[in-house]
Structures are given as structure tokens and as C-alpha cells.
């Protein structure tokens, strides 16, 4: 099965109104080439799930600036003024989620869990509308799984079978998001032959990878 496709072919899997998870932390570990192609294609009304909305000219922020999102679920939007402006003008719905909770909600979806219990957010606006569950005298919020139609992942290396190696702090949300979407598209800096990656260096096993694109290609 050939999973290696062109960036254009990959982006054709993303349609108006879809929910898209995008890896990265303040644009470190964000699949920039896939984001650029998505900006070029101009699909609209996306629900974007990401740690943050990057910057106006870098990372996920470019999609917000191009008004392609109807909703953003993120832990931080402060580095991209346009996200805040669109939110204040009522053009964009923004749901702010504590970072660790967001990671666990995505993980729950990918790992087949019905939700997770966390103390984070108890006694704050984050608890509004959520079920509280007490376990051994500690109060937790029930946070529900978050999944997506498509996940866009940034890898250091991917082999042709789809095994992923990530580099340093470019991991962040990528390995978790790779488990929680129907279609997982990986942009790798380098595509290597199957067998070149040591199984112990593989953080995301090939079974999660739907497609990969060569992010190192000019």
C-alpha cells in the first residue's frame, strides 16, 4: 500500500466544515507545508484543534488570518492577535482548554476512553457545564474525548510504511493527535526506506499513518 502522496493530493482529503487537528507548539513542530497548502486551497468553516494558533505569519495562525476557521479549540491564542480580534468581533468561536486537559481529551479519543478525570479547572470557569465526579475525596472534572476528521502531523522522519520518528521538542501534540483522527497526514522532513528506522525510535507506529508527504521536497 502506497501511503506516500503529494501535498496537493493530501490536501484534497480536507473539505469545508471538517474538524482538523494540527500539531505544533507555537509553530515548533507544525507541518508548515501542509498548512500553506491548506491556505492555498482555501477550504472554509474548519474547526481547528491545536495547542495554540501560532503567529499571524507562522504556524496554524495563517489559517486564522485567511479566515478559514469557524471554530478554534486551543489552550493559548495570545501570540496571534488576529485570533483574538476575530473572537471579539464574533467572527470566530474560540474554546479555550487547559493544555494538559486538551492533550488528554485527544488522547482519550485515540485510546478509546470515554473521557478523563482531572482536577485542572476545578473552581474556575473551565468547570462550567461539566460533570464533577468525586473520587476518594478529590473533586475532578469529567472531560470528554476530542477527535477529528483529519490530523496534520509534523515528523522528523517517516519510513515508507508510515512509522514516525519525531525530533526533540517538535513532538508536543503530534504523537497524540496521530491517534485521534480518521485520516492522519504526516509531513516529514525526510522520507526513508522501510527498515531504516529502528523500531525503538518509532514513536507513532505505522498503523496510525494514513498518508505521508515529503516536507523536505522543494
Amino acid at each position, binding site marked *: 500500500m502506497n501511503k506516500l502522496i503529494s501535498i496537493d493530493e493530501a490536501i484534497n482529503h480536507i473539505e469545508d466544515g471538517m474538524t482538523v487537528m494540527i500539531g505544533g*507548539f*507555537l*509553530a*515548533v*513542530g507544525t507541518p508548515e507545508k501542509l498548512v500553506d497548502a491548506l491556505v492555498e486551497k482555501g477550504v472554509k468553516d474548519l474547526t481547528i484543534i491545536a*495547542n*495554540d494558533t501560532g503567529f499571524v505569519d507562522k504556524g496554524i495562525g495563517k489559517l486564522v488570518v485567511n479566515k478559514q476557521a469557524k471554530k478554534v479549540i*486551543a*489552550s*493559548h*491564542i*495570545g*501570540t496571534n492577535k488576529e485570533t*483574538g480580534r476575530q*473572537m471579539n468581533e464574533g467572527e470566530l468561536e474560540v474554546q*479555550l482548554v*487547559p*493544555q*494538559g*486537559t486538551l*492533550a*488528554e481529551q485527544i*488522547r482519550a479519543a485515540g485510546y478509546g476512553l470515554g473521557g478523563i478525570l*482531572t*482536577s*485542572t*479547572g*476545578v*473552581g*474556575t*470557569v*473551565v468547570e462550567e457545564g461539566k460533570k464533577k465526579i468525586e473520587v476518594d475525596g478529590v473533586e475532578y472534572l469529567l472531560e470528554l474525548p476530542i477527535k477529528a476528521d483529519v490530523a496534520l502531523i509534523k515528523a*522528523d522522519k517517516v519510513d515508507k510504511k508510515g512509522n514516525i520518528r*519525531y*525530533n*526533540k*521538542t*517538535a*513532538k*508536543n*501534540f*503530534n*504523537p*497524540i493527535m496521530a491517534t485521534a483522527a480518521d485520516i492522519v497526514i504526516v509531513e516529514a522532513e525526510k522520507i526513508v526506506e522501510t527498515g531504516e528506522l529502528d523500531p525503538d525510535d518509532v*514513536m507513532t507506529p505505522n498503523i496510525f499513518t494514513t498518508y505521508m508527504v515529503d516536507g523536505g521536497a522543494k
Partner: protein
Amino acid sequence: MDKNQIKELIAKRVAKELHDGDVVNLGIGLPTLVANFIPDEIDVTFQSENGFVGLGPSPKEGEEDKDVSNAGGQYVTIKKGGATFDSGVSFGIIRGGHVDATVLGALQVDGEGNLANWMIPGKMVPGMGGAMDLVVGAKKVIVAMTHTAKGSPKILKECSLPLTAAGQVNLIITEMGVIEVTDKGLVLKELGPEVTVEDVKAATEAELIISDDLKTMEV
């Protein structure tokens, strides 16, 4: 003291709270300075919530690794013996009680140990990032901040801004003193340089209990 001297004083005093072997997360801004004042003989591991332990110094210009940044998005280095991980592990470390101390700034703190540092409704809504998890998960929560904002107290009877977490703050360190959050209320344990108890009281809205063993802040 000018602004930088104030920040340095606070950071130096916070550094004295950290012990050999501690795992520590520093917030963005003033707390970041704390790393500069850890004595050589003390081994503190800094955790960065974007996904690593072993925060090293800033890289030289031209030697940045695009895949190594801190939680503020600045390029940094990872010390020998450091380790990287994904956001799941990172917040497992944080929520799971594996972080000994977190140092954060604040917009407001109150006598109940409540902290508000993530938004001003209608004005500034950057999002909480990892702050809510850090404050709930770290064993010790140290607020490091200037005592007042443009002359207005930040240590209040009750926070008026949306909370980051309820009742989690353990220690407040400012240029005017060191204040411990206890079951009985806020206890002033140390006085900053060149200030009196009356000065601190006047700059603090919350009730202060003055420690019987009140000391001068040493850094």
C-alpha cells in the same frame, strides 16, 4: 530600585526556595530569571511544558535548533542528560505530582491562595496555556511578581478576575516581602529591603498576619 533590580531581587529570593534534586517549572517573564540564580552546588532540573526536562542556556546566535524551544516559543538548549517527550507525558509529569515547584506571575492573588493570571475579560484573553495544570499539579506553587500594579494592590481579599485555580498558591514573593499562604491567612514572613511592615500593609489589600519571627529578606 529600578524595574530590573526589582525583578532580579524577586528572582534571587525565589531561587533560594529551590532545593537540590528539585524538578521545577518556570513561567514566562520574571520567573524565567530564576534559572540565572541557582547556586552551582544545587542541581535543579527545569521542566518545560512543551515537552522536555533539562532546560539549558540560550543558544548563541546562529546556533539555534528549530526543534528546540521553550514554552514561550524561544529557542533554547537542552542540557546533557535532558529528555524530550510529548504533551501527554509533559502534563502527566505536571498533574501527576512529579514537579516539585512551579513559579508563576500573577495578576491577582488572594488570602485563600486563589490565583488569577490568565485573562482580563474584554481586554486580554490569551488563554490559560498550561498554567491551570501547573498550579493544580505542582507540589509547591510560588507566585513571583511585583507587589503592586501601577500602585494598585495585587494581593487582594478576593480575586475579582477569573481564577486560574482555587486555593493552590503556597508562597508569594515580591520586592516587598515573602508571604506564606496558610490555613489562618496570609503570613508575612520576610520584609523586603528598605520597607516597613506598615509599607507592606498599605500596599496589600488582603489582611496580613505578621510572623512572630519576621526576618529581613536575604538574597
